[in-house]
């Protein structure tokens, strides 16, 4: 093959570098053989192998060669370009060469890490090296496009993760839109009584942060609202938010709750969601006393003032059955508006943080534990509410018939580490089960039996906490509970028998107890799938949002400008959620503070002289970036709208569309290269 000469008639001089990556690559690929192979290929001026190409000396090697050997193309065979392409582009640019004259060969992720035959792996490395060396002469000098970034941030989810991220960014002077689905922020943490391992009260630490969010001048807090549409890309997202009607005007409500007191229902009658149905509320209510915003809402499904069903326009028909004592109580404030309908708000933001949290495992999916069948089987979150002083029993831990339990069983790993439900460890259950054991002991002095598979207490101060609780005199039994059934000798009292095998003593235990608490695991939020599609994120096979890199980019997603915080990414405790939320805020801030985003110059353009004006590309573009010039009868691509997918390029019958970085010649030469025969 004759050496390719660039347009400026400057001969192509390629520098080829294959990285050992310690033994990661060199252990499976004969790097010296590949180096020799590359050296013999056309246009290759320099061919080297080096222990760590991404290290400073490795990068310096490239720069030195560019300067001394007048290289004008660089090929690096190392890890995935998704990991280090920018590193080597930067190194290339630092030596004065256009960074897009670089091509990488994925020799680690796609090769040495997944193959077991050294000969085959080496042959594959040669084939892919050949492809890159054929491709790179076609590369053009390109410029990175800079687009201004909108400094506003959207945070989805108002649990502790969303709250912390919102405050961090708002304190840094950025405008934050915090969108929460429920009527109040606080999330799961607001429902907890105490937190492990310090046993400080959850609301005591959370409520000041909630209040700061509510009053912060830089935070637009939109509760009872949901994101319905997301368009755009990093730096310039257009988001539509549905603000559901609470039938109370937020700006006029003072949070006095006089409407609640004066409701025609004298007593609370309807299951209270915040207390997981263990308590009752009225049709007009505040989720809980410290709710933020402290604004009441009306449940149209049970309020006497509304007829059942929703009108086609989304409004509700008002009935005349009710005396509307709430309106009377509200008086001059006039905050109650029965005619309220949902509102769609459009906002523009530059970055997005997802903090949409989790749901607890539905214990009905493990029917052998009798949740939902036997009244005294509870899930752990219900117990959090029962032991909480502001909970439905004002902190009295009692069974359904009002008795203080004498014996309590706590079952770990319900819906975790189980082939039949979820395989993962939910990370927090062992610790919150120990915490509940402590609280139960403190509240009732009952005998507490913890049934665990393995006691998992990693993290700072966690093992110490376990030792402390163990010393308080808990029964810790290693064994999975097989069955929970009513005590046959004593059926009427609701007493239950817990059957398990103690795997340390190899004995079957049947322990009669008054209350069974299921340590339910954490699951992806039920709307995670819907959100994932809307925000164009990826999910792990379990359904958690997928981070860009498990170690090095744990809060980034594959969509630039969207970050993850908290349990939407996987089960974690409060400290880890807060840490991750801070990291997500910092990542968003780093983007905003730079002021612009750099866009990969992989956009497409039309060779006007070759365009036949057939218009077949125009309907294919999902971004309406292609228009038709009626005077010249040619299609035109708007470069700022083009996102570089290349769909139009593949469709053009006259071959008159070119995609930068992925030109036809570049791909064809790669095909040639991978199929050129490597030496045996």
């Amino acid at each position, binding site marked *: 093959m004759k050496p390719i000469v660039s347009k400026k008639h400057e001969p192509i001089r390629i520098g080829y570098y294959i990285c050992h990556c310690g033994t990661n690559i060199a252990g499976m690929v004969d790097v010296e053989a590949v180096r020799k192979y590359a050296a013999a290929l056309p246009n290759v001026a320099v061919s080297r192998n080096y222990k760590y190409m991404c290290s400073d000396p490795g990068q310096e090697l490239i720069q030195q060669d560019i300067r001394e050997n007048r290289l004008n193309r660089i090929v690096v065979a190392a890890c*995935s*370009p*998704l*990991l280090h392409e920018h590193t080597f582009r930067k190194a290339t640019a630092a030596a004065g060469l256009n960074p897009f004259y670089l091509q990488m060969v*994925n020799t*680690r*992720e*796609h*090769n040495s*890490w*997944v*193959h*077991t*035959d050294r000969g*085959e*792996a080496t*042959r*594959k490395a040669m*084939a*892919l090296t050949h*492809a890159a060396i054929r491709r790179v002469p076609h590369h053009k000098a390109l410029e990175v496009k800079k687009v201004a970034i909108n400094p506003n941030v959207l945070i989805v989810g108002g649990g502790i993760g969303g709250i912390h991220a919102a405050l961090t960014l708002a304190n840094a002077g950025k405008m934050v839109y915090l969108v929460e689905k429920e009527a109040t922020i606080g999330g799961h943490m607001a429902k907890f009584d105490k937190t492990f391992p310090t046993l400080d009260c959850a609301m005591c630490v959370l409520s000041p942060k909630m209040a700061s969010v509510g009053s912060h001048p830089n935070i637009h807090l939109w509760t009872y609202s949901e994101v319905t549409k997301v368009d755009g890309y990093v730096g310039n997202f257009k988001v539509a938010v549905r603000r559901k009607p609470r039938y109370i005007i937020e700006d006029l409500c003072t949070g006095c709750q006089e409407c609640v007191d004066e409701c025609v229902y004298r007593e609370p009658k309807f299951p209270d969601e915040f207390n997981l149905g263990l308590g009752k509320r009225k049709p007009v209510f505040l989720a809980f006393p410290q709710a933020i915003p402290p604004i009441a809402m009306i449940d149209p499904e049970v309020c006497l003032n509304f007829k059942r069903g929703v009108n086609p326009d989304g409004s509700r028909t008002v009935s005349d059955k009710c005396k509307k004592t709430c309106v009377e109580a509200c008086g001059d404030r006039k905050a109650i508006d029965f005619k309220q309908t949902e509102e769609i708000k459009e906002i523009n933001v530059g970055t997005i943080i997802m903090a949409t949290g989790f749901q607890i495992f539905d214990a009905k999916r493990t029917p052998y534990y009798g949740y939902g069948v036997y009244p005294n089987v509870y899930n752990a979150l219900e117990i959090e509410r029962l032991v909480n002083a502001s909970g439905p029993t004002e902190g009295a831990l009692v069974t359904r018939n009002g008795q203080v339990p004498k014996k309590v069983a706590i079952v770990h790993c319900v819906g975790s580490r189980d082939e039949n439900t979820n395989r993962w460890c939910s990370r927090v259950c062992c610790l919150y089960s120990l915490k509940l054991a402590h609280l139960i002991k403190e509240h009732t002095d009952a005998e507490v039996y913890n049934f665990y598979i393995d006691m998992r207490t990693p993290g700072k101060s966690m093992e110490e906490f376990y030792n402390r609780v163990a010393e308080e005199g808990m029964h810790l039994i290693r064994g999975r509970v097989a069955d929970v059934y009513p005590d046959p000798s004593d059926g009427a009292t609701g007493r239950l028998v817990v059957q398990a095998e103690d795997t340390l003593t190899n004995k079957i235990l049947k322990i009669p107890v008054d209350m069974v608490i299921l340590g339910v695991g954490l699951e992806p939020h039920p709307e995670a799938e819907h959100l994932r*599609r809307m925000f*164009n994120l*990826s*999910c*792990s*096979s379990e359904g958690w949002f*997928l981070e860009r890199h*498990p170690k090095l980019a744990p809060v980034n997603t*594959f*969509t630039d400008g969207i970050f993850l915080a908290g349990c939407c990414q996987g089960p974690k405790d409060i400290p880890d959620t807060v840490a991750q939320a801070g990291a997500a805020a910092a990542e968003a801030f780093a983007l905003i503070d730079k002021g612009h985003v750099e866009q990969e110059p*992989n956009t497409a353009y039309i060779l006007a002289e070759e365009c036949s004006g057939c218009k077949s590309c125009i309907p*294919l573009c*999902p*971004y309406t970036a292609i228009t038709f010039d009626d005077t010249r009868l040619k299609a035109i691509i708007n470069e700022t709208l083009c*996102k*570089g*997918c*290349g*769909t139009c*390029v*593949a*469709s053009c019958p006259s071959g008159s569309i070119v*995609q930068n970085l*992925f030109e*036809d010649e570049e*791909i*064809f030469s*790669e*095909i*040639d290269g*991978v*199929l*050129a*025969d490597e030496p*045996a």
Partner: protein
Amino acid sequence: MTNPSPTTDGSWKPRIVAFFCNWCTYTAADLAGVSRMKHASNVRIIRLMCSGRVDPQFVVDALAKGADAVLIGGCHPNDCHYVEGNYKCLRRFHLLQRVVADMGIEPERLRLEWISAAEGEKVKRVINELVDTVSKLGPLGLPRRFQQWDEEIEALADDVAAKENAAEGGGVDQGKTPQTMESAHA
């Protein structure tokens, strides 16, 4: 480019060219790597931004240049990073399948898979399955077939020329070497 018949030396192994989209399938292949999921080494992956960029010519070209099969990987329906490029790819794929079948090539040699960024395991499975299938089908050997056809045409041309020469008593040379199939394609 030389392309010696891979079957003659008895060590034929399928060579498969894959076009993976940057956001889902290429990332899934990276994940398979990070997770050390061992799989067959016969697939050569070419990265594109979107499966919508897969020009049918790429596929045909790969087969013509000696690939035994082509694998295309994109995001699952509704998950495309570019909204619906994968759907455009699917439309072209259906058409391409018919064209390839009409050319006498086994349809199993063309495979389109939706593999999300989290499905490293699926990359492994699909690659192993495809290598298995193609190993059973044997080599496609299009370059060799093209060569044979070229030889036949050349022989035919010589034959015709000889006959014409005989008829006309030695006319002028046509001055044109027959085009090879490969160059005709490119």
